[in-house]
């Protein structure tokens, strides 16, 4: 089922939890709603589910406005962060509840519950109560309950955030696989960008109720539209340096107290068109900062902190009063306090207007406003 949100607003008193949100989700697509906590993700999801009534705007399923449909008329399955299992019912009764309400015949109900439970690998836990299940098992019951009525849309509200790291990784894979097998439209809310990147075909990034950007994971990673998106997506996060923009005879330069680098001509040309060309924020991901021999380097910096990540080490450098982090292949052989030469991969640099916080390099396929 296709979903379209048009100029959707939800206000709680003065708080604009969701602020004129436009979003289209294709049939069978897996879309992640990503953003820091409190940015309006859950509110959006609950409006889709019919729990919250939009202050204004429209929600359409397959071109029908569903604003007035009750939750039970929307054919939705939802998994909550707290799982929201019914503590007084057994696993079987929990999963069967949606079918019981639909007055499905006993025999068919049993089959469907068993099928859904088996799909989630909890077929042998049917007569336990939620209190007797582990977190991971409860999560599976919640999923089975959402799936059992064969919904047209699946909604997930941070379903994995209460699981331990290992289990989370595994469930991530399972949910994605399940969604692909069932070809059901899924909206997945998370504040974890890794989850969003790995699972979704498109990610909608929100902040303060406002949609920041909407696009494929790689698109957001490689060409972030805004400072917020650039900083939010990617771990470890992107480095930001405040620079001044200079045009010289031989090209375009970015300059700060400690360094001066030449940037690509097309980047410079775009930056020049922007309204505040004097100051610019340069963003560069840690993997695009490399350690080089002295003569190839852009600038020198002092090793401040070394954090081994296994395959790579994350090294924080300091120069003058700025900081920059680099991912270098492990083991990093420098010592703390040592001065080392660094080089930035200018092709991968991002430039943002410090006033509007919008990318000056954006190619026009991102945000419309």
């Amino acid at each position: 089922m296709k979903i379209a949100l048009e100029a959707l607003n939800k206000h709680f008193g003065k708080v604009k939890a969701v602020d004129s949100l436009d979003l289209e989700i294709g049939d069978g697509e897996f879309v992640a709603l990503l953003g820091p906590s409190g940015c309006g993700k859950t509110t959006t999801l609950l409006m889709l589910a019919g729990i919250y009534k939009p202050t204004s705007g429209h929600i359409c399923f397959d071109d029908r406005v569903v604003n007035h449909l009750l939750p039970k008329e929307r054919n939705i399955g939802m998994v909550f962060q707290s799982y929201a299992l019914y503590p007084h019912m057994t696993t079987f009764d929990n999963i069967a509840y949606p079918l019981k309400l639909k007055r499905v015949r006993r025999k068919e109900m049993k089959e469907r519950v068993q099928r859904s439970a088996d799909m989630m690998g909890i077929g042998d836990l049917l007569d336990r109560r939620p209190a007797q299940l582990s977190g991971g098992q409860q999560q599976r019951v919640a999923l089975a309950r959402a799936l059992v009525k064969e919904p047209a849309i699946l909604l997930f509200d941070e379903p994995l955030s209460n699981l331990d790291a290992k289990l989370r990784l595994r469930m991530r894979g399972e949910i994605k696989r399940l969604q692909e097998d069932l070809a059901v439209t899924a909206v997945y809310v998370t504040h974890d960008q890794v989850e969003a990147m790995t699972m979704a075909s498109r990610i909608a990034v929100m902040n303060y109720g406002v949609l920041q950007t909407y696009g494929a994971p790689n698109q957001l990673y490689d060409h972030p539209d805004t400072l917020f998106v650039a900083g939010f997506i990617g771990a470890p996060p992107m480095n930001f340096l405040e620079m001044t923009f200079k045009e010289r005879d031989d090209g375009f330069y970015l300059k700060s107290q400690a360094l001066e680098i030449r940037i690509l001509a097309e980047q410079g040309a775009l930056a020049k068109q922007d309204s505040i060309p004097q100051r610019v924020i340069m963003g560069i991901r840690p993997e695009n900062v490399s350690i080089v021999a002295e003569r190839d380097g852009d600038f020198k910096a002092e090793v401040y902190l070394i954090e081994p990540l296994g395959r790579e080490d994350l090294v924080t450098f300091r120069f003058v009063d700025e900081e920059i982090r680099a991912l270098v292949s492990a083991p990093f052989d420098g010592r703390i306090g040592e001065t080392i030469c660094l080089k930035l991969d200018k092709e991968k640099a991002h430039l943002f207007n410090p006033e509007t916080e919008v990318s000056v390099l954006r190619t026009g396929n991102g945000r419309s406003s």
Partner: protein
Amino acid sequence: MLRPKLKPVLAYLVLIVPSSLIILGFLWLLITSFSTRVEGLQSLGWTLNNWRFLWESPFGPQYPSIWAVTLNTLVMSLIMTLIVVVVSSLTGYALSRMKFPGRKGFLSLTLILHAFPSVTLLIPIYFVLLWIAKIPLIGRDVPLLGGFGYNTIGGVALVMVAFQLPFGIWIMKGFFDNISWDMERSALIDGASRFKVWWQIIMPNIKPGIAALSIFSFLTAWNAYLIPLTFTAGRAGKSAVLSLYLQNFISESVMTEWNAVAAVGLFQLVPVVLFFLFTQEALLNIYGGGKKGGV
């Protein structure tokens, strides 16, 4: 060193001195019920005569036996408890969980109702009950309860329900306040109506609270005096409850048999004391407002 020790001792004194008054009083009651006369706590002659109402009707055969009256009391208390719990949990649920115009005022209103003195309303309620008695089917001649009109067990129960509602609603609202919203949302998405959510999902999860309110209401109803006295015709009628039966011993004759009154009083008291002993643990769940306050 003295001060920190003094406070608990003082506290115990504050508890124990008044408690001893209760003990003395009930001791006197017990002794009186088995005596012909007492002086202080001293019996001036032991007897079982005061308890003979247990096996014979002391006022003649036209009066109902104590056992019929006890059954009436039990039925009335159970009916009242049931209605109080159902009605207050319906309203408590709406107050806690549903949007409707005026909900903030409604909670205040329930408390304001408690400011209406029963004495004020007794006479008009009498007319209301007479009117209900005229309604076919529910008014009169219902088995066991008699009905809901004047001079019926159901009618008396209904009036007591009304006076118990402010408390019941506040208590129940507190329990609903503590239920997770996600659970209720989940049930709505699963296809339940609000009514089904209330009955199938939420109510089973506040059983301790329901039990506590039931116990409290039952105890209140068992002991009710003024309302049954006012709304049943005659203490000897077929709707008499225990506190009215007791009244028979008092002003009918010139000489009130106070010792028999003590015995009947104890007879009425003993079952609920036992009941309280066994249910106190459950009654202590009556406060449900964990996060915000409930009550």
